[in-house]
């Protein structure tokens, strides 16, 4: 038997990429998308060509080309990642892969890069149409190229989010983003045809420092978000004895410290600091608060090896939600200090009470579902799902009372829902509430939730003690017994 056709992909390519490309290129989804995309583009260019006498034919063609590309790259291609890992898990193939030399990260990364590499042909095939469109006139060449690149990079990040979430066994977590994408699909043409495209072009021409900085910040944000998502997916499928959490936490910690340091610069707009911290903290904190708390000696070993500093670091960096709670507290403390110092301490402080209420409300809105998930999650691997469900419930308990209060003009009833920190997001909008009262209330609510969460985490963290002892006993031995065991 000749195995010559096994040389279709070079050895240097990741096995996952080879596998995914072999499968993906034969999948109907990709083929149909590609053909439909090409057909529509050709049709639109011909239509625009016949109407080329009109002044706005060029911008119309651009709008349509970018709408189609955005729909394909921002919606359809990321949605293909919705089952990337879950199909391997339910198909019982992920374990087969885990037994090879492929690490969990390489599996997730391979899944992601395969979908991205299938978006690339779509991107490349758009270029001839853009060249044709150039002859219609009115084209902002640099702007449109930058915009195209940004769309592609955003597609990469969204695909990473979908691939990262796809490892979850619960369908709700995979369905929610799909619903979001479907909504986005309807919003894209509205944005691009109602002046939005020109606004984007203003930014994408990179003519001002502000636009350059905004685009750079956006790129950093999507890169960080995409990496966090892939890292989360890796944690979900990795064997329990592997630790992928500490690296993620260290990166977020470093970014928080850097952001806090940058915030000290007098030229930095202090109002933007809560947003920056929010972007950095959100993925790090949510994953840290919802990680399973299964502890094995190999995970503890690197911390135990480093003696007291290692033991102290373990309190914040050990995988699992109990250490995640301490880590979250640390990040919140650094961010709080960063915001406070950026606004300027003392009597001349510039801090905005509304921003403060909103920030604390969001913090509480994350901590409360985490507290509920910590106490009511029976299965360790369902903790993240439970967190999302509790968060959705809180959102519902925010929206419905707010609508009800507005309809009846009984805003004061919203105080009955003050246990839900997210309710302060609506209360802050109402003029009938004293802002200082709201601030005090949200601080009290957040403080109570945090204390309860820390208490729960302390109790759970104490259970790691035995595993630490086992890891300590195992140091220096090549293949030590796990523990002293009862005789059978």
């Amino acid at each position: 038997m000749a195995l010559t056709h096994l040389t279709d992909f070079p050895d240097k390519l990741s096995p996952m990429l080879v596998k995914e490309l072999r499968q993906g290129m034969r999948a109907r989804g990709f083929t149909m998308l590609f053909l439909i995309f090409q057909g529509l583009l050709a049709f639109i260019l011909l239509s625009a060509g016949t109407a080329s006498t009109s002044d706005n034919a060029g911008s119309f063609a651009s709008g349509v080309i970018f709408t189609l590309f955005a729909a394909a790259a921002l919606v359809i291609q990321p949605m293909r990642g919705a089952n990337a890992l879950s199909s391997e898990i339910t198909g019982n193939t992920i374990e087969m892969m885990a037994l090879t030399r492929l690490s969990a990260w390489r599996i997730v990364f391979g899944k992601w890069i395969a979908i991205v590499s299938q978006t690339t042909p779509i991107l490349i095939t758009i270029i001839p149409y853009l060249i044709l469109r150039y002859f219609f006139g009115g084209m902002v060449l640099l702007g449109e190229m930058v915009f195209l690149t940004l769309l592609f990079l955003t597609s990469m990040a969204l695909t990473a989010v979908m691939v990262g979430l796809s490892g979850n066994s619960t369908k709700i977590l995979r369905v929610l983003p799909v619903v979001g994408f479907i909504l986005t699909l309807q919003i894209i043409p509205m944005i691009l045809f109602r002046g939005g495209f020109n606004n984007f072009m203003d930014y994408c021409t990179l003519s001002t420092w502000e636009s350059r900085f905004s685009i750079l910040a956006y790129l950093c944000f999507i890169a960080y978000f995409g990496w966090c998502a892939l890292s989360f997916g890796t944690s979900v499928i990795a064997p329990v004895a592997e630790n992928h959490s500490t690296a993620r936490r260290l990166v977020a910690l470093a970014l928080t410290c850097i952001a806090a340091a940058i915030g000290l610069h007098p030229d930095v707009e202090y109002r933007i600091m809560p947003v920056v911290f929010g972007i950095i903290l959100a993925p790090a904190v949510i994953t840290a608060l919802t990680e399973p708390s299964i502890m094995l000696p190999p995970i503890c070993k690197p911390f135990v090896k480093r003696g007291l500093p290692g033991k102290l670091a373990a309190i914040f960096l050990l995988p699992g939600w109990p250490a995640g709670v301490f880590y979250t507290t640390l990040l919140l403390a650094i961010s709080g200090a960063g915001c406070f110092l950026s606004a300027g301490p003392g009597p001349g402080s510039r801090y905005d009470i509304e921003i403060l209420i909103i920030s604390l409300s969001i913090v509480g809105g994350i901590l409360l579902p985490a507290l509920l998930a910590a106490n009511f999650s029976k299965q360790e691997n369902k903790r993240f799902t439970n967190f999302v469900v509790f968060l959705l419930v809180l959102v519902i308990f925010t929206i419905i009372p707010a609508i009800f209060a507005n309809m009846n003009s009984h805003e004061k009833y919203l105080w009955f829902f003050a246990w839900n920190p997210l309710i302060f997001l609506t209360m802050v909008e109402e003029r009938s509430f004293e802002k200082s009262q709201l601030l005090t209330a949200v601080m009290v609510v957040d403080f109570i939730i945090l204390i309860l969460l820390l208490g729960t985490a302390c109790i759970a963290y104490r259970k790691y003690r035995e595993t630490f002892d086992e890891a300590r006993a195992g140091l220096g031995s090549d293949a030590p017994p796990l523990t002293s065991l009862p005789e059978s």
Partner: protein
Amino acid sequence: MSALKIQNLYRYFGNLKAVNGVTFEIPHGSVCGFVGANGAGKTTTMRILATLDYPTLGSAEVCGINVVHHPAEVRKLIGWMPDHFGNYEHMTVLEYLDFYARALGYKGKERRQRIQEVMDFTDLVPLADRFSNKLSKGMTQRLGLGRALLHDPQVLIMDEPAAGLDPKARVELKHLIRVLAKEGKTIFISSHILSELGEMCDSLLFINNGRIVHHGDSETLRRGSDTLGGVLYDVQVDGKPDAVSDWCVLQPNVEFLEARKQGGRIRIDTEDPTKAADVLARMVKDGLRITEFHREQRNLEDAFIDIIGRLDSGKPALPPPLPEEKLMVDG
């Protein structure tokens, strides 16, 4: 050093004690059958050995390497074949093996050579261009075996490989396992079909409710001794069939097990053949007209049921339960 060594292994899922104090060793180059009812703890034990699960307490080693502390090293030594595994859409048998060969680190010519060897061994060559998700159960199992053998592992762990196979596929699989055993591989295999295990296994492990209840060779079990502590005989008489059971009631070392057409099945509580001769002589002396008296070869299913039956009546000692404070936090 044993190929597989498990010491006081416990695996709890919440309140469910899937594995409850299992200890055994399997020497290099042997074929060991792992027998137990559904939910007895077979798959959990095997998954721990395959580094796919972790013990709540206890240790598991493959060729002397701890599966929890050094999973990557263990994975190089084992080939794992689960009871059920999915195949990929839009991927041929050849591409399937190529993917795993790449994932195992094989490159270029070596990779193609290894795939060729495995396909020849498992007779997958005619199926090379078939899509892997369109194969029959027997073909899929051969493909799974081929995948498990790609890196030429020392130990093969197979969970119910014969489940759902037709007789022809079973014979083929059995043949492949025999060949692998001849090559000196250690094979740890679970199955419900005890007769097949008996034919190809050097030893059998019985597990029940997460505990090992028997570890021995199939021949001993067939002869009806070992854990049962006696030998089974089929006795046929001329005259009233009840005569045998009536006679057994009065005998101290003889137990009547079940009635048969012209007599019954009895157990004599010793393996000593002279004692059996004594029993026969006493029967004749007491007036029983014996037409047949022969030692019975039990099938393995009977042996298994007998052992489980004895366990249910609480006869053998059981390992101590895991102390509550030793339990790790787990779902």
